[in-house]
């Protein structure tokens, strides 16, 4: 007969409850889990269409497959920075001055920076294949690098000292300022002579000259990175809320400890 040692029983309530509790206590909810599953499925479709079903281009051959990552990441980075600006405006220009808006702005900017980093890195690989070099001080590349550095500065400013309200106020101003770089990046290929090609889809003529399956693959990429953006935004803004709570608690504890030290000093001198 098999006996079960309760100390080693993996199915005992205490043992089995730990992973479930860890999920409940974290930043996940049913909605984020569903969003996460949708993101994974969409990413699978992106790989299937981007590397498999989509045809090679007449001029760029197979290297066109990098487009399905390069373009969606910069578009969603634009979206992330616009969300940062809107959330910054909501913080600055509403009477409530809710720190929730500030956290959404900060979380969105972080994701945007990660996406621009991907755009620049995969763009360098695409540049190597089509232009023969990883980098050129071309108008589009330079303005994108400027956008990247600006938002790194925005994130650095968020980490300066001060209260949460001070952080929110100064970063909101920058969030509204830096978003003005997006039209500069997007229209740089029209404003200056550029090695980078002009917009194929989001052009001012609204005339998309692209193969149907290639356009669909690009659409899959946009959906996949949009889902990923919202999934990350929910998790990161919740994490930021907990960072603020713990920072406040740490400050409260430090004040209590300092007051207790003061009481001891007063008793010692009296």
């Amino acid at each position, binding site marked *: 007969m098999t006996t079960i040692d309760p100390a080693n029983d993996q199915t005992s309530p205490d043992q089995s409850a730990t992973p479930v509790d860890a999920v409940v*206590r974290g930043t996940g909810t049913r909605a984020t889990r569903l969003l996460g599953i949708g993101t994974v499925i969409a990413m699978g479709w992106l790989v299937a269409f981007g590397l498999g079903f989509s045809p090679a281009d007449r001029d760029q051959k197979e290297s066109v497959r990098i487009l399905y990552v390069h373009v969606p990441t910069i578009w969603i980075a634009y979206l992330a920075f616009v969300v940062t600006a809107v959330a910054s405006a909501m913080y600055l220009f509403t009477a409530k001055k809710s720190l929730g808006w500030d956290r959404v702005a900060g979380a969105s900017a972080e994701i945007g920076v990660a996406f621009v980093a991907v755009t620049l890195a995969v763009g360098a690989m695409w540049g190597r294949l089509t232009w023969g070099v990883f980098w050129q001080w071309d108008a589009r590349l330079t303005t994108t690098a400027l956008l990247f550095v600006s938002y790194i500065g925005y994130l650095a400013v968020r980490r300066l000292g001060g209260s949460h309200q001070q952080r929110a106020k100064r970063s909101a101003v920058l969030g509204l300022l830096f978003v003005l770089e997006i039209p500069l990046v997007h229209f740089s290929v029209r404003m200056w002579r550029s090695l980078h090609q002009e917009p194929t889809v989001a052009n001012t003529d609204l005339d998309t000259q692209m193969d149907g399956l290639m356009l669909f693959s690009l659409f899959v990429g946009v959906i996949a990175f949009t889902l990923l953006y919202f999934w990350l935004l929910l998790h990161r803004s919740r*994490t930021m809320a907990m*960072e603020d709570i713990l920072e406040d608690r740490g400050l409260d504890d430090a004040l209590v400890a300092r007051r207790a030290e003061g009481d001891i000093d007063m008793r010692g001198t009296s």
Partner: protein
Amino acid sequence: MEDAGFILGSYALAAATVLFFAWRTIRHGRKLAEQVPDDQKYWL
């Protein structure tokens, strides 16, 4: 596939960046969540 190294490399680089960012966010969130009471987690 022609230029497979660069093409697959660009997808791998994008995946690695995104996965690292997601992993860091989730792990950091779980660590902090252990110190914050549930009634202060507005999403629960």
